[in-house]
Structures are given as C-alpha cells and as structure tokens.
C-alpha cells in the first residue's frame, strides 16, 4: 500500500502504537512562495541555544518559514507534528523516537524498545535518544510543530527533561501558538533560548508586494499595497487569502480600498471571498477536505465518494491553494486556519455533511489501526458508541503501558450513559484519574461505577467490583473506615475470583494503605507484604510500588530505619523506572521516602521532598492523604525549629479534614504535633541557657543544621572528625537533647541559627 510508510508501521510494533505517517512527514518546501531570507538568518543566529521557539498565532507562516530554512541546511531533519493526543508522553516520545529513527535506522530503536516496555520508560528512553544523537555526531534538526497542543504538565515535564540533555549537534525547534510552560524566562536568562515571534514573521510591505504583485500578478500600486499591508498588519494568512481573492478580479483596486475601510474579521471575510473565487470543483473538494485536515488520496476518494482526488490535489498543490503535500507517505494537509473557516462554510451549506465525513474517516482510520485518529473523528461526529467500543478493546493496554492521559481524554469525551453501559471503563478511567492526581474526576467516575451497578448490574462482574474497591481503598477520598472495608472486600474478591486476579496486588496495596491510615500497623504491614511478595508483583508495578511505600512508612515508625530505607528506595526505583515519578504514585513514594529521611535525621531533605509531594496532593477537593501529608510536613518543620511554618501546616491539615469523614489516625497525629509545638514554644520562652555554647561549638552547630556529614563539617571548619564529634557531644549536653535533629530544633528555638 502506498499510503503507509512501511518502516514507521514496523516501528509502531516496537512501541505498541501504530504510527500515522502524516505526523512524521514535513511539508514539501514549496517553490513559488515569497523568499524570506531574513527569517532564515534569524533562525541561523539561534545556533547554540537548547531551544528555538517559533511562537506566533495561527496563520503566521511558522511551518512554511521553518520548512524553508531546514531545506537549505546541511542537517538531517526529524519532523513531528503534534496534536492533543500527544499529551500522553508515551505517544509523544514514540513519535519523536520514530522521527529520529528515520534519519538513520536504529538511531531511535533502543528508545522505542524502552517506550514499548510494560509500562513505557520515558526518561530512560529520552536518555537513550539523546545519547544516540550525540554518538551520531552529525547535525540534526528536530522540529516539533504545533507544540501548543501539549498542555498537560506531565507531557511538558518530559520535554523539560529532554531540554536539559540536548547534545550540541541537535537543534530543537518548537513551533507553537502559545508559549509552553518550559521555564522560558530561565532559558532566556541563560541564553539557551532563540526566538522568532509574530513581529518578525509578519510580512514587511516589500514581502507583501512580492507576493501580491510579483507572484500573483495583481495590478496594485505602492499605495494599494501599503493600504492592504496596513489593514492586515502583515498577517501572512490574510495577505495570502487576499491574493487568492484579488487575482480573480479584473480591477482589484476598488476592492482593496473597500477592504481597507472594512471592519469585518480578516480571516473570516477573506476566506469567504477566496472560497468564492475558486472554481466549483476545487471549492467542493476543499470544503470537504478541510473537515479531514490530513488525508491521503485513498482516504479522500473513500470518504468523499470520488475517484479523482489525485488530479484535484495535484492541481490545488500546483496552484498553492491551501493544500500542502507532505514529504512522504502520500499525505496531504489543509492549512489549519483556512480549514477552520472552510468547515464553517460547509456546515452552513450542508449541515449533515460534516458529521458524515467524520464518521467515514473514523471507519477508514480504524480499519488501518490508527485508533487515536479514528477516535478523534468519531468523537467529532458524535458517534459515541464507536468510541466506547474501541475503548473497551483498548483500555487494558492503555493502562498497562502508562497511557493514562489518552484513556482519560477518550472517556471524558463520552456522555455518562455510554460510560455506564461499559462499567469496565469507569474503573479504568478512575484508576487513570488517580494516577494523574485528579481527585475530582476520580470521584465522578466512581460515582458512575455506582450507577452502573444499579442500572447495569448484569455487566458489573468481579473485575469491576474489585477494581472499584481497589481505587477507593488506595485513594482514601473521604473516610478511612470506608476505605479499609473497600480494600478488604477488593482483596477478597481478587483473591478468589480468577477474572479479578489482575487487580490483586493493587487491591492488597490499597487495603494496606487504608489500614496504615487507620492506625492498624500490624495489619497494614501484613497486607503490604502480601502484595510485595506476590509472584506477580514484578508485573504489577503501580500496586507493588504503593505497597513498598507503605512498608517503608510502617518500618520507619517501628524504629527499623534500615528496612524502611530499603523499601523506600525500592518504591522510588519502581516509580522512576516506570517514568511516573511525577504522578500520584510518585508523590506517594516521595512522601514515604521523606518519612525515612526524617527518621534518619536528614530533616532538610525530608522537608524538600514533602513540600514537592504536598504540591501534588493539593487539589480542588480534600483527601485524607493530603491531610496526612500536611501533618507529616508539620512534624518535620517542628523538628527543624521552623515553628511558625509547622503551625501553618497543621492548620491547613485541619482545614482539609473539615471536609472529610473519618480521618483515621490523622487527628491523633496532628494532636501530637500540637503537643510538640507547645513544648518547643515553652522551652523557647524559658530563655537563657546556664552554659551557652562556645564559639567553636556554635560554628559546628550551624553546620549541623545542613545536610553535611561529620566528615564534611570537619572539612568545612578545618577540624578533624573527632574534634567535630567532641563539639557535637558538648552541644547535645548543653542543649539537653539526644539527636542531631533535636539539637537543630532546640537551637532554632533558642535563636542560635539566625533567621532560619
């Protein structure tokens, strides 16, 4: 078949994602357009920057300018056109790796293999990719077009990760309508950002003249061009649309003058005029093709019910009319801004035609394994049964490979009734919502699971029951006792019903966490151990990591720091390996790690880690996990002597708990922190010390408050480790404490540590 890039299709297998060749093919550089050497010079000047950002609204010719520039360079080109489905980082990096692989076979192969692992290993794949590019040595331009479609923090985080690893022979060029949240001010300050923006991309009067008068032969004098340029403010899309319109007029000058005084929105008005100026054949084709956006000759023939698409397209391409042919794979693309207005025209003229085109396109794409593209068209057609059917087939694979964003997006696009009709989707999406930390969405989906049980009991089997209980136990949304009961029930079903067996490790882990928050440490330990020691634990990464976090918490509390450290490290390694350190699971592993750090007396590190996790748990809705985390944070701050901040954290915890039911042991933990705070405050009020520390002891004391080891403190102060130990012992005696952490807390209260 000519419509497929067979190598891309083969690569697709490696990562479990069928690749649409259209996303990897740059547009062909077009002859007969305005030459804009000043833009190429501006892009050349950005060499050495980690990121080149081409940022401007729709219709500013970003793609054309960058394509023309890359065509004249001695660099290999990897091009990826992004879309909203690329908020799923596994999909995003699969395409990037496949594009790099297109430069030289095997250059992206190892990264693709990592992405195809179960679940996808994103950061490891990025490392492989960047190492491969560095080893390749030759210059490579990696262009990410339509970056504005990637808006979710986890997708952006993987890009930020990659930016820090760009080797010198790679130019990363991003085309976008909106500045991405990639720390641009920092990149700018470090001269790591090159920019080309709307002001520079706008046509100069000379460029507008070249397009209108020289390329299109429109008889306009300098004043007319000036008027048109002023009215369009050099917006390239508008100048181009004006050219298509004006070149059909015998005398364009009155039209320009009229247009100069017109108040209508340019793209709107000019699209209508340009479409009106087309011949009947081209117009009928373009209005329909605009609905498709991207298509092959075969797709166009099939969906538009014609057999001459190849001829029409050749003519449209030759005359530069809104359609660009892509470099390979036989794909075409309609200019996106024009497509918007053309679709409106079709919807106004033939209201049913738009949905019919979407539906036929969805069927064509699904038959070729392009599920993401098929779902987008089916959703646009309002064909929800089609979307639900695809999801029922694909949801387990999506969860397993970490593609939670894709799963959630599709389920969210369905009306409630369609989701309830497929109860397995409610629990799969509730799991996905939990993983990305969206508690509100989780509650909505669990509510739909309840409705499914009432309305479609025949479709709710043991798998759905166990999975719903597992999510409720793990998330502890409202009520600890309820979570414990849910966990017990989920583990019992999963332990006896073969259909629910895949949920067992996660159900045990959820049950264990609920028991921990209830204060039943023995039972929590036993359940978490069953999960971690289960023969399937290696394959059930999320459940396994969650259980390890709970084991670390219990061990730390039981005064077994070595065991606690081992479990916490394992939990971290599991979530990092799975590329999900920035997920709910990652935040949980961080919290457990912080508790272990605090038990080891490394309070500054513990607080840093807890603050990071707390930001993740902070949500529009209260959860018991968040309240618990705030109390742990308060405790660490108290021990560091940061009393005001500790009081603030306890207060926030109580605020969170006001919205919740049974919070298990969290209120008791909060009361214990209160007591410690009161004690610290009264000691502070106690004032003077009988035997104040010497100057040398004070110097040691200040460094004890850092993360430095005894040896490192000695190094800083030019003392032997033994001398440091002598000073430390004297300090403990004078401060009446037994540990480094308590010494720091006491010293802070007494004002020995300055402002901190």
């Amino acid at each position: 078949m000519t419509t497929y890039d067979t190598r891309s299709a083969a690569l697709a297998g490696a990562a479990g994602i069928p690749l649409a060749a259209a996303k990897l093919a740059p547009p062909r550089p077009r002859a007969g357009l305005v030459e804009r050497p000043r833009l190429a010079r501006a892009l050349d000047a950005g060499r050495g920057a980690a990121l080149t950002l081409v940022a401007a609204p729709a219709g500013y010719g970003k793609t054309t300018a960058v394509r023309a520039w890359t065509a004249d360079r001695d660099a290999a080109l990897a091009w990826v056109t992004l879309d909203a489905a690329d908020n799923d980082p596994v999909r995003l990096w699969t395409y990037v790796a496949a594009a790099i692989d297109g430069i030289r076979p095997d250059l992206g192969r190892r990264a693709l293999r990592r992405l195809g692992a179960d679940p996808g290993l994103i950061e490891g794949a990025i490392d492989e990719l960047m190492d491969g590019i560095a080893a390749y040595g030759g210059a490579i331009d990696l262009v990410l077009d339509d970056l504005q479609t990637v808006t979710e923090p986890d997708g952006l985080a993987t890009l930020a990760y990659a930016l820090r690893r760009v080797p010198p022979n790679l130019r990363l060029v991003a085309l976008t309508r909106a500045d991405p949240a990639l720390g641009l001010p920092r990149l700018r300050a470090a001269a790591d950002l090159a920019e080309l923006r709307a002001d520079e991309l706008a046509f100069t009067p000379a460029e507008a003249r070249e397009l209108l008068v020289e390329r299109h032969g429109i008889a306009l004098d300098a004043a007319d061009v000036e008027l048109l340029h002023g009215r369009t403010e050099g917006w390239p899309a508008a100048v181009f649309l004006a050219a298509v319109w004006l070149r059909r007029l015998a005398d364009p000058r009155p039209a320009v003058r009229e247009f100069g005084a017109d108040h209508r929105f340019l793209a709107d008005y000019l699209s209508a005029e340009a479409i009106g100026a087309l011949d009947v054949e081209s117009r009928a084709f373009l209005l329909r093709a605009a609905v498709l956006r991207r298509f092959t000759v075969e797709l166009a023939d099939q969906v538009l019910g014609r057999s001459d698409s190849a001829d029409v397209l050749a003519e449209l391409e030759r005359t530069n009319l809104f359609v660009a042919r892509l470099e390979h794979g036989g794909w075409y693309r309609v200019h996106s801004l024009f497509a918007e207005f053309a679709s409106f025209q079709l919807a106004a003229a033939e209201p049913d035609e738009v949905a019919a085109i979407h539906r036929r396109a969805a069927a064509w794409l699904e038959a070729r394994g392009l599920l993401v593209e098929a779902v987008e068209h089916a959703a646009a057609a309002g064909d929800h049964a089609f979307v639900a059917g695809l999801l029922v087939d694909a949801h387990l694979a999506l969860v397993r490979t970490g593609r939670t964003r894709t799963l959630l997006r599709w389920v969210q696009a369905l009306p409630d009734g369609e989701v309830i009709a497929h109860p397995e989707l409610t629990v799969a999406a509730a799991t996905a919502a939990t993983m990305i930390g969206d508690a509100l969405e989780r509650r909505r989906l669990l509510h739909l699971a309840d409705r499914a049980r009432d309305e479609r009991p025949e479709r709710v089997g043991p798998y759905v029951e166990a999975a719903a209980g597992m999510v409720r136990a793990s998330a502890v949304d409202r009520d600890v006792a309820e979570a414990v009961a849910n966990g017990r029930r989920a583990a019992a079903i999963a332990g006896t019903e073969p259909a629910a067996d895949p949920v067992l490790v996660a159900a045990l882990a959820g049950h264990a966490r609920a028991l921990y928050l209830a204060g039943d440490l023995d039972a929590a330990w036993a359940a978490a151990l069953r999960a971690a020691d289960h023969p399937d634990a290696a394959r059930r990464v999320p459940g396994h990591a969650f259980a390890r976090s709970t084991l670390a918490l219990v061990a730390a509390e039981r005064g077994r720091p070595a065991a606690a450290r081992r479990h916490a490290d394992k939990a971290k390694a599991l979530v990092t390996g799975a590329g999900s350190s920035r997920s709910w699971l990652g935040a949980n592993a961080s919290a457990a790690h912080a508790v272990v750090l605090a038990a080891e007396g490394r309070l500054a590190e513990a607080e840093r880690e807890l603050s990071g996790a707390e930001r993740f748990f902070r949500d529009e809705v209260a959860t018991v996990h968040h309240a618990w985390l705030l109390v742990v944070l308060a405790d660490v701050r108290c021990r560091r002597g940061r009393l005001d901040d500790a009081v603030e954290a306890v207060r926030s915890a109580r605020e969170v708990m006001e919205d919740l039911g049974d919070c298990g042991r969290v209120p008791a933990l909060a009361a214990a922190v209160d007591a410690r705070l009161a004690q610290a405050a009264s000691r502070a009020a106690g004032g003077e010390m009988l035997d104040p520390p010497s100057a040398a002891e004070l110097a040691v004391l200040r460094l004890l408050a850092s993360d430095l080891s005894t040896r490192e403190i000695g190094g800083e102060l030019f003392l032997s480790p033994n001398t440091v130990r002598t000073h430390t012992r004297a300090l403990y005696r004078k401060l009446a404490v037994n540990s480094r952490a308590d010494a720091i807390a006491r010293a802070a209260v007494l004002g020995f540590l300055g402002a901190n």
Partner: protein
Amino acid sequence: MAARKYRLTVDGELSDIAGQAFEGMTLTRGAGTTLLVGRLRDQAELHGVLQRVSDLGLTLLNATVVDEGEET
C-alpha cells in the same frame, strides 16, 4: 465551581457563519470588534472558548466576568 457570565472582546467583526464556533454565546458586533457574552459552566469551558479564539487566529482584546445584574 459556580457558573459565571463572561464577556470576551475580539478584534474584527465575525460573520454569523464563523460565530458558530462559539455556540451558546451571544455575538454583538460594532466598531471593528465582536463581543462574545455567555454563561460558562466552569474554567474548563472558559479555556475551551479561549482555545477557539486561538484556533481562529482571533486577537483577544479583553476578557472579563460580568455581574449577573449588570447590563452587557
């Protein structure tokens, strides 16, 4: 989050056909701008509208919450 009434001003007068992109909002044209006024359920719906503004290449001049009692 409660629904609120929003008023957006974009540059240029939009046709009725392009106005379909903002289904559910009232369009008022005048003096080279278009006012889009409507009750939006939440921030997500507002961001959806802003996304449409960007997709169509419109220039956003102003966006504000309108008090329910206030004349638009």
